């Protein structure tokens, strides 16, 4: 009888913990991994090398410079906090407070990724902000877009070796929408839409769950095209369903038939500093209510053999 009494008492404790845990989980943010990304590109064929500056509006002295950026360059994504930024292009070696050749502002939203590119012929070069869609492609597929940055071939077709068209008569300078393609090893082909000019091909392992950008550029020397494919973001090739059963219960503080049931994380609310006092208040109200009535406590989750 004595042990049964203790067990019921502990069970009551554990049962009361349960709603607290639910409150705490409910208080947790839906997503706090909201890192944003910005990368910089030079896609103006006849514009010489520049220094590209990324500067925060906040005056927190966040400033990043990529020096000697030439045509065809695409930087890695930089992690940035959401907010307003200025992107400026300056002559190589120019001071950060010198007047820029070009500048634009970008509002970086939480969790979004951007490519800021200098595009067009030098005479009318401008900075363009692309909001890169790095969301998940459908199962078994990847997403691909084309950035047409070849001035020597004003209109370009890009297709796969199996005849799937990715971009048709894409005009310089432009960016196509993303196209979903089945994951496989593709040979991509870029060719001028009309007139002569040699086609160029590149072999790409298009893995499922990843996002790609194909850059169409003027060839480095001579005439013709260059095709460069960048993997912008990578995900799992196959996405497992749901959660992971990574616990067998043997670490819970009571053995078989016992009452308490908690991995070490139970004590550590995801509600943090705010969560526990809130939960305590909610539960205190609950306790007061419960004390008024005779509650037959079912031990629910916790008292199973």
């Amino acid at each position, binding site marked *: 009888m004595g042990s049964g009494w203790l067990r*019921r008492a*502990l069970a*009551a*404790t554990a049962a009361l913990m349960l709603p607290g845990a639910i409150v705490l*989980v409910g208080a*947790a*943010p839906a997503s*706090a991994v909201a890192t944003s990304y910005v*990368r910089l590109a*030079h896609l103006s064929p006849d514009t010489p090398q520049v220094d590209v500056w990324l500067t925060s509006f906040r005056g927190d002295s966040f400033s*990043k410079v*990529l*020096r*000697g*950026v*030439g*045509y*065809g360059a695409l930087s*890695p*994504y930089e*992690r940035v*906090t959401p907010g307003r930024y200025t992107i400026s292009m300056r002559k190589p070696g120019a001071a950060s407070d010198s007047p820029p050749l070009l500048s634009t502002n970008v509002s970086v939203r939480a969790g979004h990724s951007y490519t800021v590119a200098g595009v067009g012929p030098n005479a009318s070069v401008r900075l363009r902000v692309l909001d890169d869609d790095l969301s998940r492609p459908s199962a078994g597929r990847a997403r691909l877009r084309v950035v047409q940055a070849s001035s020597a071939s004003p209109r370009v077709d890009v297709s796969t070796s199996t005849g799937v068209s990715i971009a048709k008569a894409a005009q310089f300078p432009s960016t196509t929408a993303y196209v979903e393609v089945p994951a496989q090893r593709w040979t991509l082909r870029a060719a001028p839409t009309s007139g002569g000019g040699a086609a160029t091909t*590149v072999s790409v392992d298009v893995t499922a*769950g990843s996002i790609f950008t194909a850059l169409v550029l003027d060839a480095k020397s001579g005439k013709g095209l*260059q*095709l*460069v*494919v960048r*993997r*912008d*973001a*990578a*995900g*799992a090739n196959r*996405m*497992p*369903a*749901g959660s*992971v059963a*990574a*616990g067998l*219960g*043997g*670490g819970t503080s009571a053995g078989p038939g016992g009452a308490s*049931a908690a*991995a*070490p*994380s*139970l004590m550590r609310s*995801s509600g*943090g*500093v705010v969560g526990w*006092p809130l*939960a*305590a208040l909610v*539960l*205190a109200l609950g306790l007061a209510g419960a004390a008024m009535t005779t509650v037959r*406590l079912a031990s629910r*989750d*916790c008292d199973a053999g």
Partner: protein
Amino acid sequence: MRFAAAVGFALAAVFLAATAVAAVAGHGPLRSSTGQPIPARPAATGEAITGGDHRSAVTDEPPATAGRPSAARPVQVRIPALGIRSSLERLGIGADGALSAPRDPAQAGWYADGPTPGDLGAAVIAGHVDSTSGHAVFWRLAQLHRSDRVEVTRSDGTTVRFAVQEVRRVRRDRFPTVEVYGPLPDRGLRLITCGGLYDHQRGRYRDNIVVFALAT
């Protein structure tokens, strides 16, 4: 029965009071999850990128991992703050469509149909919180804090260092699949174990602990 319930209330009240005080005093280990967006640090890479180099090739980001996804696989994970060091088995998707947990509770595992730690994308490493008889490799995972280090050694001899961004407890029926496995334009790592209440009747934990980290 009434007496038992009353004792239960008392124990619960004492427990709550103690933990509320601890939380106010700043001892809640999951402080990173209080709702503010993570103030991401700028990446440490500061070199100039070279212009004009545009061979026809696939290049990953960042340049350190240029080329196709590496053939390397992770061989060991270390979490110095928790004294965790484990070799890694390969994990796959089970018959139920979910990520299979490691066979050995003392050993963590890497989801082999996703990115390798240190490559572009979010690599996933899972480990048990407990076995049928006691603690397992990721017993203390929920005690990680923001900025804690996680190191992964790869079969190509390189070691990749990650910094914890967030430690989150999620209900298993609301698992953030896309956040964990979806496309990432960065070198990320997710560590997964079980947490929350253990349901003896159903033989399962109600929650997962998910640690989000980015390469430093």
